[in-house]
């Protein structure tokens, strides 16, 4: 089911949290609302679910205008960050609750609960109470309960935030599998860029109640629309250098790079270099500095290089090198992959 949010505005009292935001999600697509806490991503999610009233704009599911529909009547399943399982009910009763509300026959409810439990692989846990389940199992119950009504839209509010690292990895692919198998349109709210990139078809990166950029994970990573986007995506994060674009790109007094193709001389800019595009293993123009930090990661090491102008670049270098702390180095930059931003942070 296609979701079309147009000119959405949300106020809490006198403060406008989101103003004039538009977002469209294609049928069967999984999209991430990514951003730091307080950027309005959960507010947007709960406006779509119907829990928050929409103060301005419209919301369509397919061709149907659902802007004024109460949450009960919206074909939406929601998974909450703390799962919000009903503690006094068994797993089966939890999953069956949305069906009992629809007054279905007990036999029908039992059948559909069983089906759903098989789909999320908790068929053997139906008699348990939520507090007897592990975090991952609770998460599966919450997913089953959200999907059992066969909603048109699945909304996930930070579903992995309460899980430990290993389970998070498992549930990441599990949620994606469920979404693909059911073909449901899904919106995932998260502050974790890795979750957003690994689980979703597209990412809407939000900042201060606006969508900063909306694109596929690969495209957003390769062509960030702004310095903010570039800084948000990528782990370890991108390094930003203050530079001057004149005849060439000068970084401090001692380093200079040729201007990337098609860039005009324009004064002070920001140069963004991802750690995987800088290091001794690359080809291209070089930057000189001194190794100021080495962080071994096993397969590769993260190495910080401080330039003479006291700015810092980070490099990912394959393990097995003999680089020592304090050593002066001259390493190459993959100039075709660097990002340039103007003084306001917009991509050049």
């Amino acid at each position, binding site marked *: 089911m296609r979701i079309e949010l147009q000119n959405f505005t949300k106020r809490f009292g006198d403060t406008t949290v989101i103003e004039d935001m538009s977002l469209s999600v294609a049928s069967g697509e999984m999209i991430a609302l990514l951003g730091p806490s307080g950027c309005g991503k959960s507010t947007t999610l709960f406006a779509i679910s*119907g829990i928050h009233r929409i103060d301005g704009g419209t919301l369509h599911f397919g061709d149907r205008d659902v802007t004024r529909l109460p949450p*009960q009547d919206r074909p939406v399943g929601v998974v909450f960050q703390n799962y*919000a399982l009903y503690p006094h009910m068994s797993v089966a009763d939890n999953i069956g*609750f949305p069906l009992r509300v629809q007054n279905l026959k007990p036999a029908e409810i039992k059948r559909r609960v069983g089906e759903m439990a098989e789909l999320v692989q908790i068929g053997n846990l139906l008699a348990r109470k939520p507090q007897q389940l592990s975090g991952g199992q609770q998460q599966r119950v919450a997913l089953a*309960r959200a999907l059992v009504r066969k909603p048109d839209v699945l909304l996930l509010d930070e579903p992995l935030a309460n899980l430990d690292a290993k389970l998070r990895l498992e549930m990441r692919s599990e949620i994606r599998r469920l979404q693909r198998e059911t073909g449901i349109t899904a919106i995932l709210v998260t502050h974790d860029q890795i979750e957003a990139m690994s689980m979703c078809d597209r990412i809407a990166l939000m900042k201060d109640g606006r969508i900063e950029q909306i694109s596929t994970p690969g495209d957003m990573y390769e062509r960030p629309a702004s310095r903010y986007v570039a800084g948000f995506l990528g782990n370890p994060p991108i390094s930003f250098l203050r530079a001057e674009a004149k005849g060439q790109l000068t970084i401090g007094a001692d380093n200079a790079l040729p201007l990337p193709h098609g860039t005009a001389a324009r004064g002070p800019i920001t140069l963004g270099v991802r750690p995987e595009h800088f290091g001794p293993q690359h080809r291209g123009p070089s930057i000189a500095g001194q190794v100021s930090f080495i962080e071994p990661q096993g397969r590769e090491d993260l190495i910080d290089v401080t330039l003479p102008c006291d700015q810092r670049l980070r490099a990912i270098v394959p393990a097995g090198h003999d680089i020592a702390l304090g050593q002066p180095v001259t390493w190459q930059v993959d100039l075709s992959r660097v990002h340039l931003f103007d003084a306001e942070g917009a991509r050049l």
Partner: protein
Amino acid sequence: MNTKGNWMLILALSLISAPLVIMYGFQLIDSVSRPAPGGIIPQEWELTNWRFLWTSIDSARPSIWRVTFNTFVFASATALLVCAFSITAAYALSRLNFPARRFFLAGLIMLHAFPTITLIIAIFIVLQFLGLYDSLMGVILVKAALELPFGIWIMKGFYDSVPWEIEMAGVQDGASRFRVWRELILPQVKPGLSALLIFSFLAGWSEFILPLVLAPGADAQVLATYMNAVIADDTRPDYGLFKAIGMFYALPVIAVYLLFQKRLMNIYGGGTKG
């Protein structure tokens, strides 16, 4: 804690509670024995002090069973009224956004701390006007109303500790707000509800001033006023009888505390864990 510290603590606590224990002990002993005149050592064991259970102690007095029944009706009706209003009013105060919510909350705290005895004349006039003066019904309504601020406040605390997400999930699952309250939220506050039920029952059971002032007649007499009347009337005080009646009056309270101790603790624990 080490054993020595434990013993010290137990000793200190015993010393402090000794007077109370001795009083209760003699209440019980004296009710079934007869001490030497002026002495405290029991001389003879007998049940004559408990005669009020099977005979009328004097002609003008209603039977003890009638009075006990009144007390029971008074206490249970009060408890049920308090609970019924508390679970709904507290939910509204905890969850719903309605005009003057802050005013109601502030009023609640103020009423909770209000010395109710100062209202007694006004209440008397109101009851008189309504024709409920000197009736059990009238006292029940007054007692329940005066207990409500406490009940609502306690229940609001329990509702506040139920996560919002449970409510949102229920609404999203298609249930009406009322159904969410009844099927999803109410079960979470059950520990608070049962504690409140017991507490308001006990408050009704031990109430003295309201029945004394608002229902002085023999028909609406409760145990507290009955006991008071027996003590006040007697020209030749029979302390053994007073103690036996006192004992009889206290027994249900002791039984309730022994049975429901754990649940009563919930009110002070305040959590959702049962």
